[in-house]
């Protein structure tokens, strides 16, 4: 009984809105609207029909409250002549302001607590002997880098010594040559 009454009221509203259309095929549109209305009789809440005024392509949005605990539901009926109606059910879920505030509050609180708590802890590996043995420089691959640095510095030191020796030898040789030439000069004189 209730169902027929709602469908009847729906029908009336449908006719009312459809009467704005051009009366090209009165009966067709009537049956069409009947079909549409009967297809959307499951909605029991407030009905809002939005007509875009085009005769060929009629699209109406039915706002309905089908599931009371599901806050908003929209049924979009797109009609094309000679084709099936396209019915799209849109359910949009809204968080209430209070729920959003709760979510963000808890997020903020957890962040605040986490920064305090985990900032006061330490990484046990970071201070451990396996990581901080003598010679480590605190990087994950410290042994090799340290080793390479040591090798490089000792090698360069060795080279410098060799170079100095070489230079000394050369200088000594030059001096010897000079002295020899001086002696020769003296001898010549």
């Amino acid at each position, binding site marked *: 009984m209730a169902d027929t009454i709602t469908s009847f009221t729906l029908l009336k509203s449908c006719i009312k809105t459809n009467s704005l259309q051009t009366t090209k095929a009165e009966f067709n549109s009537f049956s069409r609207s009947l079909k549409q209305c009967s297809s959307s009789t499951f909605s029991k809440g407030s009905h809002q029909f939005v007509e875009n005024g085009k005769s060929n392509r009629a699209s109406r949005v039915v706002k309905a409250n089908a599931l009371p605990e599901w806050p908003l539901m929209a049924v979009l009926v797109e009609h094309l002549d000679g084709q099936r109606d396209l019915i799209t059910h849109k359910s949009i879920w809204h968080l209430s302001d209070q729920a959003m*505030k*709760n979510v963000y*509050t*808890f997020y*903020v*609180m*957890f962040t*605040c*607590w986490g920064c*305090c*708590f985990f*900032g*006061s*802890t*330490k*990484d*046990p590996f*970071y*201070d451990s002997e396996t990581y*901080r043995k*003598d010679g*480590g*420089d*605190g990087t994950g691959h410290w042994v090799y880098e340290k080793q390479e640095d040591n090798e490089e510095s000792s090698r360069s030191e060795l080279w410098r010594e060799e170079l100095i020796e070489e230079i000394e030898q050369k200088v000594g040789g030059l001096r010897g040559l000079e002295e020899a030439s001086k002696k020769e000069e003296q001898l010549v004189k």
Partner: protein
Amino acid sequence: MKIQRTDGEQMELILQEDFKYGKYDDHHTYFEGDKKGTFWGSIAEDYAAIGPPTGFQGFISWIFLPAIAAGMYFNAPGEYLYIGAAIFTVIFCIIEMDKPSEPHNFEPQIYNMERGARDKLISDYNTMDIWDFNEKYGDLWDFTVKNDDIMKR
């Protein structure tokens, strides 16, 4: 089976098939050691290893999140929750700042120092007034310069 060594000592002879690999040669990939605690025991060990806050600080840090959740469940005004969080943060940080500093509280270059010099520097930092400390060790900020005289200061 005992055998006599050439230096006169008795020695246990272990046959190849009796040798327990990993146990006798201490090789951990064969034998990981017989230290077998429970699952929760290992969790507690890991938790203790990170040096969590203890005492009053530990108590408030454990009570904080449940208190916030309870307040939100019982629809306490949000302002009170935030004020509570601010007080918690201040108290927690005061307790944290009163703790003596450890090596991981400094810049990581401190690990490049010799162990004795580092310990002396950190103990001085923990005991001295910060202004005196800065006067005494202020030139150490440039860690690219080698400083070997920390122990003598």
